């Protein structure tokens, strides 16, 4: 039985696609603008002509540009980690500060949990959210259920929801994406602050109180706090171990590094805490972007606001099967491509809004990460060909300085990225996983496969939301919390 059902009110809600209607230039509704199409086609044409006219020279120039790109990217990533370890840019909230909070002074906190075919997660979700250390009368928890998702609705109806919970039914309409459901929920959210959780999430119990203190301490410009994400099933199998190594490096090293240099922060999928009023001013999420979180992170910066990292963790379920992991990663990379294309529609405007430093950070974090995933297989193939067959013709692709840079990337760059995984696990105190980070190169192969899948899907089916299946990793039995 539901404590509250505002499905009737849905008729009165605002437009969940309002961003794409009011600010179409900020939305991925049109994946590529006509100008972008022309530029891309022109680039391809020039490349093909060059390849036909001077194939070897074209290949050499391509290798040169790619090698420089790899060197810059590797240095950038290492610098981020250096900053993240040496400069504590995260908001660290002490236990004494939390104890000092008085319940009556706490603001109402909205929690939104979009769910779709998550029947098996309902009980555990309700239990996890009930564990939050926050007064019930100050909680506004919305379970966002799709109108046609009968199984999840039935599972929710079958239990008694604790006080503070309510269900918001999202009417069936296109696109069928999580950000659209979140936009519906945003209209009904009345808390001063708002946070998004996924159905399988287990946030640290004191997370909301930390966020309240964090917002009060971070200053007016900070309208978003990103919690760290990690997994409660890191040791389920090799894939979850490698996934954990990657996540630890990203959330415990790279994002704090970005925060330290005050760069653009692509938000993680869940546990983003917002100032509700400001989020509404930003028109919520882009319903057409399949990594709406990343896109919102950039828009926050473009609007002159700031995101900071909050030292608290939300525990998620690591995808434990390759068959589910690849679609999930495909969606993420496709979303990054969407985000990059949306914000690069007017590069000069982006430059003037972000400033040069943040503009370059955006290029590195959103653009270059994706490009590296796509380029990697090509250079791995070249390396393998050279090692196996010692093809001298390949050597001529790498004249003196390019060869030096290429070797540096191959042996130093790859080492650095493996080492980052080790440090990430070490920092997270996953002692036994430090060794598994050595196997991360195999994981990169999966990433590149997903990257190319995303690349083609961006053109063929840009709004397709490949849903990640949860509930395969237990429900937090292997708790690290």
């Amino acid at each position: 039985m539901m404590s509250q059902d505002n499905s009737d009110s849905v008729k009165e809600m605002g437009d969940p696609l309002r961003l794409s209607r009011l600010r179409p230039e900020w939305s991925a509704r049109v994946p590529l603008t006509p100008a972008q199409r022309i530029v891309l086609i022109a680039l391809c044409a020039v490349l093909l002509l060059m390849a036909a006219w001077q194939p070897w020279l074209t290949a050499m120039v391509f290798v040169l540009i790619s090698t420089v790109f790899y060197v810059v990217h590797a240095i950038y990533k290492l610098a981020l980690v250096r900053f993240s370890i040496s400069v504590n840019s995260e908001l660290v909230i002490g236990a004494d500060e939390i104890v000092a909070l008085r319940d009556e002074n706490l603001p109402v906190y909205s929690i939104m949990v979009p769910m779709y075919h998550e029947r098996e997660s309902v009980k555990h979700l309700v239990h996890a959210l009930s564990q939050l250390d926050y007064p019930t009368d100050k909680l506004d928890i919305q379970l966002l259920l799709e109108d046609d998702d009968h199984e999840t609705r039935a599972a929710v109806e079958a239990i008694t929801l604790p006080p503070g919970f309510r269900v918001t039914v999202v009417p069936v309409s296109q696109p069928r994406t999580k950000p659209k459901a979140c936009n519906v929920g945003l209209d009904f959210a009345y808390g001063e602050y708002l946070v998004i959780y996924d159905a399988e999430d287990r946030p640290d119990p004191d997370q909301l109180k930390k966020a309240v203190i964090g917002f009060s301490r971070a200053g007016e410009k900070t309208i978003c706090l990103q919690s760290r994400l990690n997994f409660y099933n890191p040791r389920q199998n090799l894939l979850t171990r490698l996934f954990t190594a990657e996540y630890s490096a990203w959330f415990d090293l790279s994002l704090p590094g970005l925060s330290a240099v005050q760069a653009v922060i692509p938000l993680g999928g869940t546990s983003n805490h917002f100032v509700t009023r400001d989020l509404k001013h930003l028109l919520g999420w882009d319903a057409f972007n399949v990594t709406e979180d990343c896109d919102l992170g950039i828009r926050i910066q473009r609007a002159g606001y700031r995101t900071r990292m909050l030292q608290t963790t939300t525990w998620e379920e690591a995808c434990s099967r390759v068959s589910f992991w690849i679609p999930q990663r495909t969606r993420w990379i496709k979303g990054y491509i969407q985000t990059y294309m949306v914000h690069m529609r007017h590069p000069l405007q982006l430059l003037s809004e972000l400033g040069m430093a943040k503009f370059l950070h955006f290029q590195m974090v959103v653009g270059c990460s994706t490009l590296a995933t796509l380029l990697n297989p090509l250079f791995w193939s070249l390396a393998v060909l050279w090692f196996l067959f010692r093809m001298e013709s390949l050597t001529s692709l790498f004249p003196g300085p390019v060869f030096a840079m290429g070797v540096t990337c191959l042996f130093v760059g790859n080492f650095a990225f493996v080492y980052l995984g080790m440090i990430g696990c070490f920092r997270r105190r996953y002692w036994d996983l430090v060794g598994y980070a050595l196997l991360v190169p195999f994981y990169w192969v999966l990433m590149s496969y997903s990257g190319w899948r995303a690349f083609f899907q961006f053109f063929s089916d840009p709004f397709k939301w490949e849903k990640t299946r949860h509930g395969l990793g237990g429900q937090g039995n292997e708790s690290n919390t």
Partner: protein
Amino acid sequence: MNQTRESMLWRWGLWLILTVVILAAGLYLGRDVGTEGLVRQGICSELLAGHTAGRQGVISSIWWGPFPTLTILPVTFLIPAALDLSASLLVSAMFGAATLVLIAQALRLWGAGRWRWLLTLGVGLNPSFLEHCWMGSSFPMVTCLLILSLYSVTSWVQGRRLLDLIWFAFGSALLLGTGYEMSGWVLAAVCVVVIEEQRRLVSGAEKRAVLMVALFPLVYTVALWFLMCWLIMGDPLYAVRSLLAAGPGPGGALILPDVLWWCYAGLAAGVAWMLVQALRGHDRGGVCLTVLGLALPGAAGLMAWRERLWDAAPLLLALLPVAVLVLGHWLATSARLNGANMAGAPARGGGRVVLLLVCLPLVLVDIVPLALSARLPATPAGTGTSALSCSGMQPSWLPDLVRHIRLQTPFAKVFVCGFESFALLRDNTSPVFEHALDFNLDKSKHDYYGQVLYLLVHLPEQRNAMDSIHWKYSNIYVQGVKDALYDSDWGDWRLFELIQATGPR
């Protein structure tokens, strides 16, 4: 501007200023780049030109570690030719400045207060230190990495900060990449980390994790070196063959004034005394620091026992900065124990006495070699006397050698063996010469069938004795080898003519 960023800017600014000062002083005094600097620049030029000799030069010998060369490589590429500035000199100055900044930074963090400036100045004014910065030698780089490793491992033992462990991991791995000389010290440092982990009451998984993070870069460096040897030289152990094949090295005294030996003995004694103090005070960081400080003369002693005292030069020369670091740590620790604030007021009693009695006299005594070097051509320790004499000029006999060979035939080819060939042939565009780091008599005769071939071999002394030509064809310099007949002497080099039949192929 927050404090961290300000401190970082301050450090970088200081580093930049010191680099410029060291560089300007070197240029003003007209110091020439030494043999090592010339060799490494030569390797870089060959590498940038895409020649095999360059690739071989980077990895084929543990006596010429790859890291200094690879550091000089981008500088060689980036420095405009019009500047006429030696890349190795610039890199040496940069690392020399970095060493000073690191010492000052380490002493600040340990709480040595204003005394850190005096101690850092002691290192910065040390004539040997400056001389090596000006000669473009790899010594400043070795010292910098040594100080980095030493400081970070001590800080790790004291505070167990992840960043310190990472710095130690990279510092020690790169130190090993500078060459063979520091391998003993790196091994000692690894042992300290392993022992430290073993005595901690934590899970086995955590101990393993610490060791993996600490040692992975080191293991990777060694594995990569072997892999490169296999790919470029066709033998994964090529770089260490000289050790396996050559046995005890040919004598050769370390070219240092006698008075310096007393300095080093005094420094070692001072560090040993501080080890006793650290043990008495249960100061684990101090024990780690002093033990690793003493590992330097220890490793030098081992090399002396193996009759390779000339290898020990970097170890002995690095002893002064390390001793200063140990002294600063000891001063800070004793001041803390006595309740004195070193930042505000000088340390009391013992500290000043030690500082005056140990550190400053050593700096002053070291002026002697500076005075000597003002009159004599500078000779880098560890490279010994050379036909080039570090003068920065090409030897005058090189054109004569070309004429001598052209008299026999205009189509001769001279294989110049060993690493000093890069210094000898710098700026030489004559097609007569060819670098031969991995010379093979039969293969050369086969590849240059019918052509008149010569072999130019350097006197096998000190580091040159470890060139592959000497362990592949032992005693070649004295006795020649099958089909290689003595022709003539050119400075410290000896020319052999390779005899081959000239019948139809």
